[in-house]
């Protein structure tokens, strides 16, 4: 398979937007690079930018490998990506508002009603609940890959609790600290204002009549894999980081317990899944949530960000319909491509998938984090047969997509510099008024040779992402 290389064209010439970096890399002694890489590792350890890995020894923390070769995006490409992201996230929010109100899109027959209403992520509790600005996904992490001749595809829309933005910010800080001379030579668009932008959006969606809202970040706790990010964002925004036990509901109003007594909370940036938010409404065994918070939310006394029930729009079984949503709500043609998707619940598509398992990528409809997926071309016969059984047993639990020839980028690995596959996760912020994002996003890179799975839980690393200004 031929892969699009971010740095070099098909003839091996360096692409214009990488020229400056490549010159620098050639001119810089390898000992200096090695020293800087060691310095970066040490600094990440000391700062404690680590994540916990599920399934490993409890409390164990790992570093996410950081690569010093940036992923560079030229200005024109970014502008088109940005328009596409704005369009897509706008349509997704309109879809969410619609399915929890009049359900016009279902009535129009654009999406089969049972696909939405029978979806485990659809929350009937949200029917008829009006949200500030009609926004559901205030923070969206849209995964974008590049394939074929370099065209962009949306791989998935993460509308629940997308994570990784702290790595985007820390990677930039690290690059500027290690190689200030590179930033003097390149016009790299800044990203460090992300927390400001996030706070502004969260304040903008406070309940009606609240002029100076109290915003908090809700974390499942110190053992969550993304705990570093929760503390980081709370600190950068200057708001309290709370756990469920710090909050309580009285008369449908949410309070936090402070040293000066109870204090009202207006906006909760929650990093906790729907299921755990309220033991009285969802999973009764959840000790991470806040009893009664759903009632307070339905009464409009508190804003949850993201809203309850956004999962119905980023579900992999809904994903194939996003281009239709854009046409339906905005009357525009989609700017970003969707990856062609086979829905295994359709018998003829299931048959095709079963016949071509070795070529396809199969994903669990509700899966995330790179768990529970099959990459056909990289799998053994046993793995493929295992998935065949899973698919036959529960076809509506899976979708399949052609294996994309993901673009790659030179990356430092053990044997030196070698191409590795990568993706991009821009963080798209919405309030009622506008859809914004900082230039670029988080670039994740699969460090294992040939691997197409970039998730940090699967051994992926990150790169600084540069959007070059004209």
């Amino acid at each position, binding site marked *: 398979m031929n892969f699009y290389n971010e740095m070099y064209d098909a003839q091996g010439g360096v692409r214009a937007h990488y020229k400056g970096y490549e010159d620098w890399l050639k001119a810089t002694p390898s000992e200096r690079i090695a020293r800087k890489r060691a310095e970066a590792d040490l600094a990440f350890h000391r700062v404690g930018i680590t994540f916990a890995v599920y399934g490993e020894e409890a409390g164990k923390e790992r570093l996410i490998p950081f690569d010093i070769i940036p992923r560079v995006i030229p200005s024109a490409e970014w502008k088109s990506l940005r328009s596409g992201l704005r369009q897509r996230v706008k349509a997704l929010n309109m879809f969410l508002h619609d399915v929890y109100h009049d359900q016009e899109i279902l009535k129009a027959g654009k999406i089969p009603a049972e696909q939405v209403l029978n979806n485990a992520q659809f929350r009937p509790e949200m029917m008829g609940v009006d949200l500030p600005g009609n926004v559901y996904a205030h923070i969206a992490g849209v995964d974008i890959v590049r394939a074929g001749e370099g065209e962009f595809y949306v791989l998935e829309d993460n509308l629940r609790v997308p994570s990784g933005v702290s790595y985007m910010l820390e990677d930039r800080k690290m690059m500027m600290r290690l190689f200030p001379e590179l930033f003097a030579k390149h016009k790299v668009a800044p990203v460090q204002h992300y927390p400001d932008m996030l706070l502004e959006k969260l304040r903008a969606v406070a309940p009606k009549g609240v002029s100076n809202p109290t915003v908090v970040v809700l974390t499942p706790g110190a053992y969550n894999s993304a705990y570093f990010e929760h503390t980081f964002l709370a*600190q950068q925004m200057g708001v309290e980081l709370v756990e469920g*036990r710090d909050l309580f509901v009285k008369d449908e109003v949410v309070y936090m317990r402070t*040293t000066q007594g109870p204090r009202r909370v207006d906006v909760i940036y929650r990093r906790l899944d729907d299921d755990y938010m309220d033991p009285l409404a969802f999973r009764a065994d959840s000790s991470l949530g806040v009893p009664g918070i759903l009632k307070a939310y339905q009464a409009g006394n508190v804003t949850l960000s993201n809203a309850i029930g956004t999962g119905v729009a980023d579900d992999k079984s809904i994903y194939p319909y996003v281009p239709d949503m854009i046409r339906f709500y905005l009357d525009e043609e989609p700017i970003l491509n969707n990856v062609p998707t086979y829905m295994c619940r359709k018998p003829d598509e299931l048959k095709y998938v079963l016949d071509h398992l070795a070529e396809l990528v199969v994903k669990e409809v509700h899966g995330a984090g790179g768990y529970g997926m099959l990459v056909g071309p990289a799998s053994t016969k046993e793995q493929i047969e295992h998935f065949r059984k899973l698919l036959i047993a529960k076809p509506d639990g899976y979708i399949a997509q052609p294996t994309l020839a993901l673009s790659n980028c030179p990356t430092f690995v053990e044997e030196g510099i070698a191409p590795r596959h990568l993706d991009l996760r821009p963080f798209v912020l919405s309030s009622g008024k506008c859809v914004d994002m900082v230039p670029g996003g988080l670039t994740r890179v699969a460090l294992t040779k040939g691997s197409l799975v970039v998730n940090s839980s699967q051994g992926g690393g990150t790169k600084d992402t540069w959007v070059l200004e004209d």
Partner: protein
Amino acid sequence: MLSRTADHLFWMSRYIERAENLARLLDVTWQMSLVPQPLETINQSWNAIIALNSLEEAYAKKYSTVNGENVLKFMVSDPDNFASIFSCLRMARENAHAVRGTLTTEMWETLNSTWLEAREKTFEQLFNAGIGDYFEWVKMRSSLSRGTTLGTLLQDDAYHFIRLGTLLERADNTARILDVKYHVLRPNGDEGATDFYEWGALLRSVSAFEVYRKVYRDVITPERVAELLIFNKDMPRSLQFCLNSVIKTLEKIANSHSGETERQAGMLHSQLRYGRIEDILDHGLHEWLSDFMDRIYLLGNGISKDFLVPMDEAA
């Protein structure tokens, strides 16, 4: 500020302070044990450290005899001993981790790297490299975290709760060190010749040797040592100094139901403000110190109830 956050900060600073004071106590005992004296006397002072922390049972499970190396190993780097320096540094780091967003970057990095460094070395490595150096290191790390707190943290509630933890722990620890050493040094309360080296080491353990010289300009006597550690209002590790600061800090964080705790602190403070060493010695130093430690304990409970443990929802 969030009650839970305040709780973590309070305990974070208590554990750092505890690690430091323990290092001081072990250091002085180690140094004293190097002065020629009967083995029995030496082991008696090692035993006192175990007794001081009420660890007789836990210790007996691991070691059959009390001697310097065993006690040091148990109190320095035993992860199963919740009172060891190792455990204190781990707990300090864990509490900090739970509220790292409230700490400044410098504070967090100090605590985190202290812990990372502490778990690197085995007891044998520490001991062979010179255990005194290790105690110095613990003291320096504690100073560093106090320094970064003072130099970088906004002096809001977070600072006050950190301060409160430090002060309560220090008052308790100074009282403990004085209690155990006064006992060991004067088992019968007799007025015999004072041992310059031993009292000197005790003073050094609370960084008060030079202070003593400055204040008294005279030979070291047990009464004056006790007076200095209890009543000197300017020495940062004395009981009066700690209570002065506790009172001021409590005023800053007071809420609608912390009145009783403030009153208790005020009562204890006035004893130190207006008391005399002669009266305490007449009454019995050990009795007085035990009572003091009990009241510090109750004060800690009061603070916990008023500020740190989640309040009643109906409040």
